């Protein structure tokens, strides 16, 4: 016999092929179930490494977003507080103008002064506004920033500090989150509490009322200018938030590009594999039923 003798035992080879098909089907099923073609580093080492970085960036973006959520609340609280301060100061100016009217009696002026005292208290309360347990105008101090103090000319003393905080809202992007109360309520030629105190004194003594009203006006303009800081900060965080949203989308697109299962391809592969596995099984069963020459030697 000169022809090459063939392997009389085909079944072990077929079983091995079957095992391989089974393995491929398991992989495909896992890919379909998880939606990811990278379920362990060896599935795509480079991709798995990219995924680690992408997930880290996503986690960073999430935490920046969450920080923005928190500081936005702080900014809008500060802004609306200062808005109230401005309104109250406007009311003080009208009261001062009213008090300057020469037709008023002493007792009328005393009433106006009394109302201004109320305004002073109101301003004190506004200056001590807190957000989530933190005084927003105390600098980086933990104490109530503005306290009554009879030894102070304005009757109010600043007990906070001049510290400022920054919060990171992007990679290498920080935003200042506070202005110290000492800066918000007093600046060059303007002091909120002093001006109200001066107006009260002027009304009580009926002298220099117009000057005192001008003083309150200066304080009004000063606080208005300070309020711009919070408006700007809000704008900054809003636009950063928009950027982070698109960054997040971008990252999830990257993640998809790296790891998403090509559903159609995998599903097709799976059904092809099924077909091949069935065919192999069929072949094995045919072989085991097949006859040998012995069957004919009867």
């Amino acid at each position, binding site marked *: 016999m000169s022809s090459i003798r063939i392997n009389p035992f085909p079944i072990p080879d077929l079983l091995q092929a079957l095992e391989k098909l089974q393995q491929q089907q398991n992989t495909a099923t896992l890919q379909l179930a998880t939606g990811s073609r990278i379920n362990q580093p060896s599935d795509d080492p480079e991709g*798995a490494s990219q995924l680690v970085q992408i997930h*880290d960036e996503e986690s960073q973006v999430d*935490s920046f977003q969450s920080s923005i959520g*928190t500081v936005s609340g702080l900014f809008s609280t500060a802004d609306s507080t200062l808005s109230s301060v401005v309104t109250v100061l406007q009311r003080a100016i009208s009261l001062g103008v009213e008090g300057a009217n020469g037709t008023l009696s002493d007792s009328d002026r005393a009433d106006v002064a009394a109302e201004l005292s109320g305004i002073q208290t109101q301003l004190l309360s506004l200056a001590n506004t807190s957000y989530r347990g933190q005084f927003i105008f105390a*600098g980086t101090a933990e104490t109530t920033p503005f306290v009554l103090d009879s030894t102070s000319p304005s009757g109010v003393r600043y007990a906070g500090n001049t510290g400022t905080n920054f919060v990171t809202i992007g990679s290498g992007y920080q935003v200042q989150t506070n202005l110290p109360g000492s800066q918000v309520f007093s600046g060059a030629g303007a002091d909120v509490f002093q001006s109200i105190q001066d107006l009260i004194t002027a009304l009580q003594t009926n002298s220099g009322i117009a000057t005192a009203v001008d003083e309150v006006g200066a304080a009004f303009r000063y606080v208005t200018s300070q309020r711009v800081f919070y408006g700007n900060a809000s704008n900054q965080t809003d636009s950063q938030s928009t950027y982070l949203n698109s960054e997040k989308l971008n990252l999830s697109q990257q993640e998809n590009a790296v790891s998403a299962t090509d559903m159609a391809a995998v599903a097709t592969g799976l059904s092809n594999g099924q077909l091949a596995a069935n065919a192999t099984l069929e072949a094995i069963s045919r072989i085991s039923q097949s006859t040998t020459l012995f069957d004919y030697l009867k």
Partner: protein
Amino acid sequence: MSSLFGTMAIAVGALGAEQGAMNATTNNVANVNTPGYSRLRPVLLENEPVIYGALTLGQGVSLEKLESLRDPILQLRIQEETQQQGQLNTFVSGLQQAQVQFTGSGNDIGTAISGFFSSLNQLSTDPTDLALRQGVLTAAGNLANAFNNTAGNLLQQKTTLDQSVTQAVQQVNVLTAQIAGLNTQISQLEGVNLDASALVDKRDVLIGQLSGLIDVSTIQSDNGLTLTTSNGTALVAGGQSFTLSTQTDPSGTQHIFSQASDITAQLTSGQLAGLVEVRDQTIPGLLSQLDTLAAGLANGLNTANRAGYDLNGNPGGDLFVPPAASGQGAALNLKVAITDPSLIAASSDGTAGSNGNVAVLAAVHDQPIAGGQPPESYYANLVSEVGNDVSNASAELDSVQSILTQLQDQRNSVSGVSLDEEAANLVQYQRAFDAAAQVVTTVNDMLYTVINMGTLTG
């Protein structure tokens, strides 16, 4: 001139030869499913003819031997590939267990690093908030746990591999003793010119098993079969086997000894080589990189924490228990040093509400603290390294597997029993036997005629 008795003798000889041939077929059919069995083929030889003047008279047939059909070269190739397969199989399954640690499961180191820096970003929004401070401590604890668990699991795997080394060495010793025993029997049989093919088949099976465990070189010489490892360590020489032993080194790792010499690092293939490679190279390599990362993070964050002030206005201390200067064991032993959340040094100036130092802590995320890389990049590289190791070794295993399949197909095409062939042979031998028996009957009749010749004439 031939005689009737001579013819009778030829026919009887043929009966014997065909019976012997049938014995080969019977044995083949009986062993159709025996692993490692090499089919027998009867070697029939024409007897020396008798020359009688001008006549040359055939003297019939005799069965010289039953020959085992095997290809020794193929057998050697199968052994080689089996060794490769044994090594790669062990290596891949070891690495696959290791890479589970580096799968983005949510409990992995990468996620824990992200989570920790995320918690710092939260803290920066309100440094006095104890809940946020606790969040940072919890995230630091998770980070330490992720390192502890990953390193712990790798070490556990190393211990398991160590036990497998001891078991594999025991199996090697059992097999070499059996092979040496067979060597003795085979050379005894062959010494008196007897057929030892059944024992040779058995020995081939055992050598195949041995090849799965250790690298084996086979040398066939006049005084039997010698087995050595590829670096020349004797395993079997003729009827003598040399046992391997294991000894524990100071670090508790099992080393493989042949007599007095340590051959652990010299094994190149077989299951033992795979076990040793994962145990002594891959896992220690991963552990050392984890240590670098853990030590880098701990030192970087400790330095950052010491740069600030805690909630009570005191200078910050260590956030993590400082790792050993060598970094060794840093991953396994990483531990948060503080339990009081107020000790996180968020403040840069000592005031409680300052968050200036949180940014210093968070900046470690982008600092080259491990092997010149930021922590997450270092970890990402580690993941790709593990993945590459597994996928390369798996690809190699696949190719060895298919080579081995082909070689086994080839072996079977030479040595495997085909039932069709045996059936045909059976018929052939039976017919020849029938014919020879018929000759005997005919000669018998002729002899009868001859014996009764005198009676008829007289």
